[in-house]
């Protein structure tokens, strides 16, 4: 088994919109002195040998099968090229498949799972997506391809960070994190990234994914942002511009002092406030601190709201959406008031992103039959909506960890290293469209032995 695994050549699927920096990254990989022999399958490029490496031009050919199943949709050109590459004795250490900018990564990834020839000899190492940090906003809301490229990714490069502010980056990362909780995200300029972040990252390595991303398991909040202000008594003004949503829920809470700790302490009580019924407030109305959830109506021409402060002190403003989306600013006596401390939260409503991820981590052993039934049924009924799934499982009676990954309905699992003295646990993540967290969690937990 292990010998077989070692023979599998890792494949990276490289996606990203035109101009995101895919080609820059590819050239970097080819010229970097990493001692690996790499075959690159590129679109619209003649076949050339680059020292030890090989670049093969491919013309994207999407094959849909007769039964109309989207999960059987594959890249015909890749089947032929990969099949041929695997025949050479002097195998390549690594294969990179670059997709066209507008490509849905599904068929490419599925090609690697589709038949015995592919699964025996190739291993999907990662789907790596290069995101143009400045221009992705033009696509993320209205392009299925952009969202799918993010959702399918194991590794995401936020590229061209020199063209955006830190704040914009944070926002973008939060948005992406909301869609895909498992991807490793790196911020890059000119696609400069250490090769070991891109090559041989092993799509299976959830351990590492969790390590680098504690936020993945962090609870979700009903607000995206909180800022702590020192406000003097009197009337202040909250000014907004038109944004992506017609309303925004906010809460203003007095806090003890203007520190990060004080802001943190306010989070839990305000979560409770956000579960209350909201009070609608139209432009021109007055906002007061206290335990009320206010819904600002943002449909007027002039979006100004009074903020009435009776007593000078520290106040925390919690907002449903990130204030930058509405260019929200607070003014006191005509001067801009900036927050002393602010914090972003992982949102649970993901804007209107239907693409989300659901992570499940639970100790204990799984009953193999129940697990099989559940996964089988799940993939049959929800396979279209589940873009990716991966995880580490603890199966009752099995000394080894069981690792798996899947693309839509296609599933590849195998025993991994022994648990040894480690505590046994299960950790898995689903990334997809319209996922029902409760249903998935309950279904999985019912498989525990």
């Amino acid at each position, binding site marked *: 088994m292990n010998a077989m695994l070692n023979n599998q050549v890792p494949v990276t699927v490289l996606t990203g919109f035109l101009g995101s920096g895919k080609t820059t990254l590819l050239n970097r990989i080819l010229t970097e002195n990493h001692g690996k022999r790499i075959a690159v399958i590129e679109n619209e490029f003649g*076949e050339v*040998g680059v020292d030890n490496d090989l670049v093969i031009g491919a013309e994207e050919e999407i094959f849909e099968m*007769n039964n109309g199943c989207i999960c059987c949709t594959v890249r015909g050109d890749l089947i032929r090229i990969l099949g041929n590459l695997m025949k050479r004795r002097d195998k390549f250490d690594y294969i990179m498949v670059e997709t066209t900018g507008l490509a849905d990564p599904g068929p490419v990834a599925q090609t690697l799972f589709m038949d015995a020839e592919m699964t025996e000899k190739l291993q999907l190492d990662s789907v790596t997506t290069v995101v143009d940090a400045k221009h992705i906003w033009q696509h993320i809301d209205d392009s299925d391809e952009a969202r799918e490229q993010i959702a399918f990714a194991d590794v995401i490069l936020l590229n061209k960070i020199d063209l955006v502010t830190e704040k914009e980056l944070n926002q973008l990362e939060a948005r992406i994190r909301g869609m895909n909780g498992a991807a490793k995200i790196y911020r890059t300029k000119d696609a400069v990234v250490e090769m070991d972040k891109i090559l041989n990252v092993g799509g299976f390595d959830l351990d590492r994914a969790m390590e680098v991303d504690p936020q993945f398991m962090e609870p979700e909040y009903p607000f995206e942002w909180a800022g702590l202000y020192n406000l003097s008594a009197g009337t202040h003004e909250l000014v907004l511009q038109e944004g992506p949503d017609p309303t925004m829920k906010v809460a203003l809470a007095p806090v003890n002092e203007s520190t990060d700790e004080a802001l943190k302490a306010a989070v839990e009580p305000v979560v409770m406030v956000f579960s209350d019924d909201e009070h609608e407030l139209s432009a021109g109305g007055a906002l007061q601190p206290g335990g009320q959830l206010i819904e600002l109506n943002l449909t007027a021409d002039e979006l100004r709201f009074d903020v009435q402060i009776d007593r000078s002190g520290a106040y925390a403003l919690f907002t449903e959406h990130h204030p930058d989306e509405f260019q929200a600013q607070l003014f006191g006596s005509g001067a801009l008031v900036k927050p002393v401390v602010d914090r972003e939260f992982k949102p649970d409503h993901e804007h209107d992103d239907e693409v989300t991820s659901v992570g499940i981590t639970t100790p204990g052993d799984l009953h193999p039959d129940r697990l099989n039934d559940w996964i089988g049924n799940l993939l049959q009924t929800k396979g279209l909506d589940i873009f990716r799934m991966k995880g580490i499982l603890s199966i009752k009676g099995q000394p080894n960890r069981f690792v798996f990954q899947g693309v839509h309905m296609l599933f590849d699992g195998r025993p991994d290293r022994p648990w040894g003295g480690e505590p046994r646990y299960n950790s898995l993540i689903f990334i997809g469209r319209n996922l029902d967290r409760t249903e998935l969690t309950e279904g999985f937990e019912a498989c525990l032995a």
Partner: protein
Amino acid sequence: MSRLNNLSNRFAQPIQLRENWSATISDYVIDLAWSPDGRYIAAASVLGPVTIFEGRRRTVIDAFRGHEFGTMSIAWRPDSKVLASAGQDGKIRLWDMTSGRATHSLDGGAAWVEHLAWSGGKKPILASAAGRKLKLWNAVGDLVREYPDHQSTISGFQWKPRVGQLASIAYGGVTLWDPQQSEAIRRLEWQGSSLVIAWSPDGKYIATGDQDSTVHFWIMSTGDDLQMSGYPTKVRELSWDATSRYLATGGGQEVVMWDCSGRGPANTDPIMLSGHQDFLSVVRFQHRGKLLASGGADGRVYVWQLRGSTRSLAVHEVALTAGVTSLVWSPNDQHIAVGDESGGVSVFSIS
């Protein structure tokens, strides 16, 4: 598919496979071709070079450079004086056996020229497939025809036995071509990906082996098709016997043989031939006889003998050190040449 027969090795073995010689070329044997006059065996390596062996002994007659980035396909002109090769440099080359040189280097029309086939007859025509481009060439390398692009990459083709028509497959179905016509003469549409085509010697059926683990029979008189499912994996191995009665297919560890006599293979159970321990890579009937040879990723070669209507048995098996990639019968049906994954070329005699 039900399991009717599993008769391997249960009977005495009246026929033996005896190794004549073996040799090694640079890498994976991607194609083997026995010259029609029986004198030469051409073996193409996936890396590019093409080695010409003498059929009867392991003497190397010539070594052609082949194609940069890899050779894909080789085919002898019917007079055995010229070997055509195609490869990943986008070229088709005609190698002259007398001078040992490439006399022509022709443009296939795309980066990879994957398939080649000579028609029979006095004025043989060479068909080449590169990407979506189908071209026809005459015996001396003049372009005869360049057809409008296929809708998808051509995955295979075959000349109709004795009649100068060509059937090509691509994602989307089968297309028939007549060298006298500039357009396709017939289309058999199917939304799926066929990997290999085999026209029955009597021309009544076109069989395809498919990516979705099925085999299709196209009934040429009506244009109807039958789909045979239940294969464990994609089907890349097809071979008709000389009488057009049996179609041997791979797509798994067992040879699955369909009987097309009587009312045809619809609703019948195929004959299953078990023995291989891994997926098959080639099945091939003799040109005229009833013996079937099969090779697999398990490195084994079996020869099966058909007896009566349903009974078949393995008459002999041999084991190579690497998975079988290609297998051809000699023109006189007395020998088989086998190529394997590590570049081994072996010739066996039936005795």
